[in-house]
């Protein structure tokens, strides 16, 4: 019998052992590059002008060394893969992230001190790379710590610390904070609109999925139509919705009195719901078929009515699949809602598109960051619920 190479090499040399050390070295190299060579801040005369770059050593001074040192220690502890070491690494990475942000804030304030009030300090590529590397390592530390609940606590702790940092005014000099301060009301309203858009579409798609799951004969046709709809690019479906809506409003003018218009949230919600219907319908049909025949026969033998079988047997057993489908649909809906701004539906997409039109990076970020945060929170939250449902009903 021929055995693969990794089986016969001495343990100390196998790829599996060397790889973590290699990845850790590459990670540390990238972090050093981001902190010392790449621009962490760009200082510009105004919000649209191109700026001069400042490297980490220039903008952060001693903080850069501190962050690098803490991270090197943390990544060394992470390579060991031991659970306690990972917890220590976590408590090194968390302050490193906050120290880095604080350093950016003070560095920006110092650089802007002698300039005109219109001058802006934006985040450069070095900052983004540093933050990505540090949060990635933080995620790995949470995973390797194998302590249930630590991930949630870390996430909440990080959010609270960030809010505290923002509140204290330490970040006020950063361009993103200046932009947010100028548009606080608009951004907050857009977040609400965005959630409303995605939420309404999700509910509409859910109702549609339930309706479609009801008629048994046509399931093949339903699969074909919903599958075909997925092929249509979202930009095209939104355009088609606007054309159809304006035709409909012209044919039935009374609809206009109900507050409908060709542009606005309604066509966007219908288009988004059309995409979300497939994952929800598929999840629902799989969930209803999840219990095996023996279980169903046992339920029947106990004298449960079809309605009781649905509520007490089919839905609980299918619950994880159903929650999984809702998770996929909800994340997709939040993404598609961004595109809704194209047809005047509002939401965070409007801020993103305004930023693109003005070529203002901070404005784009102001719209993009909440979209990503909302999607990630939804993803994490619903996958937790999915896991809980699996534990509860499939123990």
């Amino acid at each position, binding site marked *: 019998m*021929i055995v693969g190479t990794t089986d016969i090499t001495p343990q100390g040399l196998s790829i599996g052992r060397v790889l973590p050390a290699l990845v850790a070295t590459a990670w540390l190299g990238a972090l050093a590059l981001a902190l010392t060579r790449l621009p962490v801040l760009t200082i510009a005369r105004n919000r649209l002008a191109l700026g001069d770059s400042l490297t980490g050593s220039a903008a952060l001074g001693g903080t850069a060394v501190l962050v690098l040192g803490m991270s090197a220690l943390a990544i060394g502890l992470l390579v060991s893969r031991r659970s306690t070491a990972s917890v220590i690494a976590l408590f090194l990475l968390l302050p490193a992230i906050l120290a880095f942000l604080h350093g950016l804030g003070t560095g920006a304030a110092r650089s802007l001190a002698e300039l005109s009030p219109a001058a802006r300090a934006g985040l450069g590529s070095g900052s983004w790379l540093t933050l990505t590397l540090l949060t990635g390592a933080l995620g790995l530390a949470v*995973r390797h710590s194998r302590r249930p609940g630590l991930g949630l606590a870390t996430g909440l702790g990080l959010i609270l610390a960030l809010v505290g940092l923002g509140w204290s005014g330490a970040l006020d000099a950063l361009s993103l904070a200046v932009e947010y301060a100028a548009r606080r009301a608009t951004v907050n309203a857009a977040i609400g609109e965005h959630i409303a858009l995605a939420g309404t579409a999700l509910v509409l798609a859910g109702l549609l999925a339930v309706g479609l799951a009801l008629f048994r004969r046509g399931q093949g046709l339903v699969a074909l139509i919903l599958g075909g709809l997925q092929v249509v690019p979202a930009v095209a479906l939104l*355009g088609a919705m606007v054309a159809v809506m304006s035709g409909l409003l012209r044919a039935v003018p009374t609809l206009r009195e109900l507050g409908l218009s060709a542009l606005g949230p309604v066509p966007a919600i219908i288009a988004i719901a059309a995409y979300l219907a497939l994952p929800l319908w598929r999840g629902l049909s799989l969930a209803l078929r999840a219990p095996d025949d023996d279980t169903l026969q046992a339920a029947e033998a106990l004298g449960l009515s079809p309605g009781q079988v649905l509520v007490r047997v089919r839905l609980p057993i299918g619950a994880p699949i159903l929650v999984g489908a809702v998770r996929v649909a909800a*994340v997709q809906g939040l993404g598609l809602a961004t595109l809704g701004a194209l047809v005047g539906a509002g939401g965070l997409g409007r801020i*993103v598109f305004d930023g693109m039109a003005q*070529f203002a990076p901070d404005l784009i970020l102001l719209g993009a960051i909440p979209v990503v945060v909302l999607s990630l929170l939804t993803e994490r939250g619903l996958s937790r619920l999915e896991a809980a449902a699996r534990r509860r009903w499939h123990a």
Partner: protein
Amino acid sequence: MSAPLGFALTGLALAGASHPTVARWITEALGEPARRPVSVERLLDLTRAHLALAGIGLALVAVLGIGLGILVTRRFAEPWRPAIDGLAAAAQAVPPVVVVALALPVLGFGGPPTLLALVAYGIMPVLRGTAGAITGVPPEVREAGRAIGLTRLQILARIELPLAAPAIVETLRTALVLAIATAAVGALAGASTLGTPIVAGLQNQNTVAMLQGTAATAALAFLADAALLAAVAGWRVIRP
């Protein structure tokens, strides 16, 4: 009627609807004024640009996604699987429009931000699909390959990949549809694609142009999907 044929016919019908004359009829039937339709030559130019952008993106996504998918199923990568799955889920939380928007200040207007969005959003589903398909190969078959003296590379090439192929093709179909949709979104960043008449039509309230773009983009998606399905069906006939 089989799905590829249905998709092909839908695509052809939509392509017909994007013709200036037909689009003008539809617009007038909707009661909108039919102004300045997009000429056939311009539509064909945009189609070529759209296909080029989506094609390059899809090729990158396929090579990187399948390559990395194979890598993560190798033994040495086993401990990294949960981290990679977590990364895949996180990458899906950043919608293509947002990637296009974020890349705009760095990469400038046009194709590059669109291409980045295409790769960033498409690579993880293909990676995950490939890894899932290879992991789904029954261990007995792999053991049998080992027993007859195949090396790891031979097991991959002769057993794992052929058995995983149908599932990998399914993920590539998703990636193809995604590539065409993202190329349309790229119009927002100034890339010249079939999304351009839609975005411009919405801004200038030019319903004909918007309808033409809409029909042409959807037609392209349906025809490309049908072509991929037909290619796979043809492949199965030649090498059953």
